[in-house]
């Protein structure tokens, strides 16, 4: 049931991509997203595709997990393609009443579709190979310079980790309470909207109570360990760049260079 929802959709595997420093993966992903908009010609898309396919191969994540991420944007894709095909002016290939398909429309629609798909798959690769906690760590380190401007970077990162940590716990709790109430004859699936909302009370009240209880316990436990946030805290597993990370940065820079070259030379 609810247990099947995995947040951040991390896929455990042993690949070079899983081992890379999360900071590198985060910046690398940003670079990739930028490159999707750099290329705009057929050979350019060829380079883009080759790069993406080799990264997917390196990640050892089954392809069907990547396509799962596309499900929520399916309708956006459909609408984009539909309007781009029908509303782009140019050389008419087919016409029926006010509906017409142009050569430019097809090219434009194909391009938009490719970009959207690549954007989603590109960022999915990062979330599939990086645990939410690693990602938070990376963000904390990357945003660290903002401290100069009194941005509470550590506190925000801590809140993010705690929130992420508690999502599966609360999901499990929801599942448990739901089942307990179903065992008492509660019905969460039928009735009209108002009825359904009312039926949620036996689920929501215990859930909120337990969430507050947990928050209280956690705050108490943190205080008992003299937690004071920020300051000069060290980490148990501090992020340290390895040689493979510099190598990966190098590859991304070269790749981005190719993208810029393609754009400048109009290939």
């Amino acid at each position, binding site marked *: 049931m609810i247990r099947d929802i995995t947040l951040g959709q991390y896929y455990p595997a042993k690949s070079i991509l899983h081992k890379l420093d999360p900071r590198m993966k985060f910046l690398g992903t940003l670079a990739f997203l930028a490159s999707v908009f750099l290329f705009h010609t057929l050979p350019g898309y060829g380079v883009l595709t080759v790069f993406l396919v080799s990264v997917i191969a390196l990640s050892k994540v089954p392809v069907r997990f990547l396509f799962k991420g596309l499900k929520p944007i399916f309708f956006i894709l459909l609408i984009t393609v539909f309007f781009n095909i029908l509303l782009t002016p140019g050389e008419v290939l087919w016409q029926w009443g006010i509906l017409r398909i142009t050569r430019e429309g097809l090219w434009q629609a194909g391009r938009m579709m490719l970009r959207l798909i690549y954007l989603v798959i590109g960022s999915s690769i990062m979330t599939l190979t990086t645990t939410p906690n690693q990602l938070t760590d990376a963000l904390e380190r990357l945003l660290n310079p903002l401290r100069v401007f009194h941005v509470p970077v550590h506190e925000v990162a801590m809140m993010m980790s705690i929130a992420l940590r508690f999502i599966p716990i609360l999901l499990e709790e929801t599942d448990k309470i739901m089942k307990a109430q179903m065992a008492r*004859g509660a019905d969460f699936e039928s009735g009209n909207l108002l009825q359904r909302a009312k039926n949620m*009370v036996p689920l929501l009240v215990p859930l909120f109570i337990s969430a507050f209880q947990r928050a209280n316990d956690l705050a108490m436990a943190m205080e008992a360990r003299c937690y004071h946030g920020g300051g000069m805290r060290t980490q148990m597993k501090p992020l340290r760049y390895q040689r493979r990370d510099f190598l990966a940065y190098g590859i991304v820079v070269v790749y981005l260079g190719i993208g810029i070259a393609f754009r400048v030379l109009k290939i």
Partner: protein
Amino acid sequence: MSIELKNVTYTYSPGTAYEIHALSQVNLTIPDGEFIGVIGHTGSGKSTLIQHFNGLMKPTEGEVLYNGENIWRESYPLGKLRSQVGLVFQYPEHQLFETDVLTDVCFGPKNQGLSEEEARKQAASALALVGMGEAYYQKSPFELSGGQKKRVAIAGVLAMNPKILVLDEPTAGLDPKGRDEILEQISRLHKERGISIVLVSHSMEDIARYVQRIIVMDQGRVAFNDAPREIFSHYKELEAMGLSAPQITYILQALREKGLDVDLRAMTVEEAKESILEALQKRRLGEDGR
């Protein structure tokens, strides 16, 4: 009113990296009026198993039969099944949500379609069974102590008049006194109402005293399914599964190794006392005779 499991296998998140076989090839029968204990190490599949009894979980493979009918055939009234097989989850106090005790216990009977008045009657009798008097009816469930909350929650399931009552670790988090009280009340229920009871626990001591049969779960399989005395004689194998026999079994074992002829199958302290006294008397008689 029997539950029958045939070759039941349950797999969490099949086909993904998180795949776990929680149950494999389980065959069981829960007959009428029996008091059964289910025991197993954490993660042995106990909780998954009992959720198959009232159709909260659907087996990945195999069949669950209630009175000979497959509960997963199309249009089977699962709601009715759930009111006949009452399931009390671990920490049932987490399911309380109403503003007062009586209304909370009425939730189940009302879902069964009973009138306000009938529901109240059922709730009152269920609360009486768990030893919660009228003085508590108007209290908020959140003002009660842990043990009292637990009893109210158990009453919430009892009020539905189940034919089979399944309890998942009803004594978790209770002090010894609260534990004994709850177990006594459950045992009384079994005698007075004649309903079948399935008691899940990881403590042999808890269940040894009350149950007629013990099902030992190990890694999603039924390892033993027998009378308590027979089960405890396998205490070496139980240890390999991360379980243990009642402490008294170990004492008797040690005594026997020292040459005292005690009955190893004694399960409670009282029985053990009898057995030791008897053995001592026999020995004395033997010495006198010599």
